[in-house]
Every structure is written in C-alpha cells, then in structure tokens.
C-alpha cells in the first residue's frame, strides 16, 4: 500500500510528541462504543474532540445534539451537554436550545440519512436562518443503523438492501445544497484526512453562523460489504483518499480528471448576520423603545 510521503515523515526534532489525551472528553465507562470494527465514526469523533479542545471552549458551554443513526450515538460518549433526539430532528432541537441560550456552542452530529433524508427540511432551514450551529454530517453513503439501505448520498449503481439491483436514485451533494440554502461556512473533509478534518471542524466551530461539514467516512459493515470493499482500510483508500481531491489540487485538474471525485476543503464561506444575534438586536431595539 502506498502511503503519501507527508504522512510518513518523521516528527520534528526536540519536542517530545505526546498523544492527544481524549480522556477529559470521554465519559467514564462509556467505551467501547457501539460502532463496528473499522467504522469511520470513531475516527471523525477524534478529530472533532481535538478541534473542540483547540478552541479552548469549556465543556460546560458545549452542547452536542444528534438525531438517530450510528453517527447520532456520538453524544452518549462525550462529556458535553448532550442530547440524542429523534431521527432527522437534531437540528430542530438544537435550534430551540441555541435560541434559549445563545451562549452555548452547539454542535449537531448527524448522518447522511438523518440530515438529508428525513431531516432535509430542517437542514435547509437552519442554513437559511444562519443560526450559529456547527452541523457535522457523517456521510457514509448509507443508513448504517438500519443495516444498509440506500441513503440520499448513495452513489448511483451501488448496492444496498433497498437497492439490491443497483441504486437508481441520484445523490445529493450536501455542500452544494447547504450553500444554496444559505449556510455561511461549507466544507468537506474525510476520516482519512484526519488532520485536515480537525482544522475544518475547528474553523466551522469558530465560525459565527450556520456551518456545515460533509464528512466522508466508511461503513464497512454494510456499504463496504455490499459493495465488495475488501476492508475498512480499502474503503478509506478508495472513497476518502482516492475519491476526493482538495480544492487546491482540483485547480490543476481537468474536468475529466475531476469526474466522480468530491472536492475537499472549504467550499464556501460568506458573511451574513447570525440569527440569534439578530434576534438579540430586535429585543434590544424593542426594549429601548419602551
């Protein structure tokens, strides 16, 4: 297996490298988590925790809200204010919570099914409002929790338990949709590019307004099995490493070379008033009128 040079290069000298200590963020006794061997969700979670750590935000001020799905099990493991809700509805609970207490930094953990199938409406409306939510879509191209049905991001032609003859449904591009709906920070990362992902989640978390990160990761148990990927590693290589190109790399590629590849990196960034702040201004202006 070829490993990119930059990954293998030895550590810079002198400073002793210590591994990141996740323990303050993991609830005691909650591991091992429910995810299957090789499931990408755990890798994403680690990038997420490093990013929150880097932000220096107190755990008391972080709320994590999820829907239903394998990915949506994340909140149960981490020591924040955590809320595991209904399938597709994470964003609505998060909206209520954020508006009730705008001081909270609110992370939404959701899957491609949760966010884009049943939850699609809340997804676009959150983007429209530009409320300060960090929406992380764990995109494994399938419904993991219910055993591998077609999701709104399943690639055409792929096999699923509701698409045994090959999926004919065209997929969404999460990022294009988020941008069109009004999200002010839109990016894509992968579990494979864990460091880049950490940086993206950090930026998304610090961004004021609705940020959406489409995170490509692997469900070896179902998507992998049905589509004959040899292993979790194989999926990471094919779907995440070879299936994506960074925005920078893409500039140098022809449309043909880009065919079938997803862009990685920050895809859209804009400035618009944040919703809870706008609401706060309305309150202030009405109260000063009295």
């Amino acid at each position, binding site marked *: *297996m070829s*490993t990119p040079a930059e*990954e*293998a*290069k*030895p*550590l810079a*000298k002198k400073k*002793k*490298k*210590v*591994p*990141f200590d*996740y323990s303050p963020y*993991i609830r005691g006794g909650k*591991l*091992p*988590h429910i*995810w*299957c*061997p*090789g*499931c*990408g*969700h*755990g*890798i994403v*979670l*680690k990038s997420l925790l490093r990013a929150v750590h880097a932000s220096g935000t107190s755990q008391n001020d972080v709320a994590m809200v999820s829907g239903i799905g394998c990915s949506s099990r994340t909140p149960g493991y981490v020591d924040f204010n955590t809320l595991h809700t209904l399938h597709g509805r994470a964003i609505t609970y998060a909206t209520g919570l954020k508006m009730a207490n705008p001081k909270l930094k609110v992370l939404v953990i959701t899957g491609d099914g949760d966010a884009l199938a049943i939850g699609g409406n809340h997804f676009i409306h959150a983007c429209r409002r530009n409320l300060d939510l960090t929406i992380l879509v764990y995109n494994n191209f399938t419904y993991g929790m219910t055993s591998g049905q077609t999701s709104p991001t399943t690639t055409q032609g792929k096999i699923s338990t509701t698409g045994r003859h090959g999926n004919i449904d065209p997929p969404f591009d999460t990022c294009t949709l988020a941008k069109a709906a009004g999200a002010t920070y839109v990016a894509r990362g992968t*579990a*494979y590019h*864990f*460091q880049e992902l950490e940086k993206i989640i950090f930026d998304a978390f610090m961004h004021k307004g609705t940020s959406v990160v489409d995170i490509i990761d692997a469900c*070896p148990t179902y998507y992998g099995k049905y589509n004959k990927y040899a*292993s*979790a*590693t194989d999926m*990471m290589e094919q779907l995440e490493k070879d299936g994506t190109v960074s925005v920078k790399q893409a500039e140098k590629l022809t449309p043909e070379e880009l065919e079938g590849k997803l862009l990685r990196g920050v895809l859209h960034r804009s400035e618009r008033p944040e919703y809870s702040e706008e609401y706060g201004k309305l309150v202030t202006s009405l109260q000063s009128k009295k």
Partner: protein
Amino acid sequence: MAVVEKEKRIFRIEIDPRLCKACVICVDFCPTDVLMINGNTVAVKNLDACNGCQLCDNRCPDFAIQVFEE
C-alpha cells in the same frame, strides 16, 4: 550542508485490548509496519520501526492505541 546524525528516538505503544476491535486500520496505515493483528486485538510486531507518526492513533476509531515518546 552539515550532515546531522539522526537521533535515535524511543517510543512506547499502548494498546487497550478491551477497546481494540481488530479492524486492522492501524496495521494497514502504519508506514513502517510496526503492528499486527493477534487474535482479537492488535499487537506490536516491530517497535523499533516506529517513527512516532501517530497515524495509528489518529486513524484508530476505537481510542485503543496510543504512541508515547520516551
């Protein structure tokens, strides 16, 4: 350019067998082939080869492996 003798660095790899699910990711991505699967868990095959890149930790989905520099 002055040739600098590469300092020998020593690493310790901690594996939590209760957490490891033997998914083989760390084994596959280790650039220097340090690790192997042994039964239901990962094990160190060749510690000497470890360069401390921490790819195994960063890509382990299960919080099961860590690399410390001694």
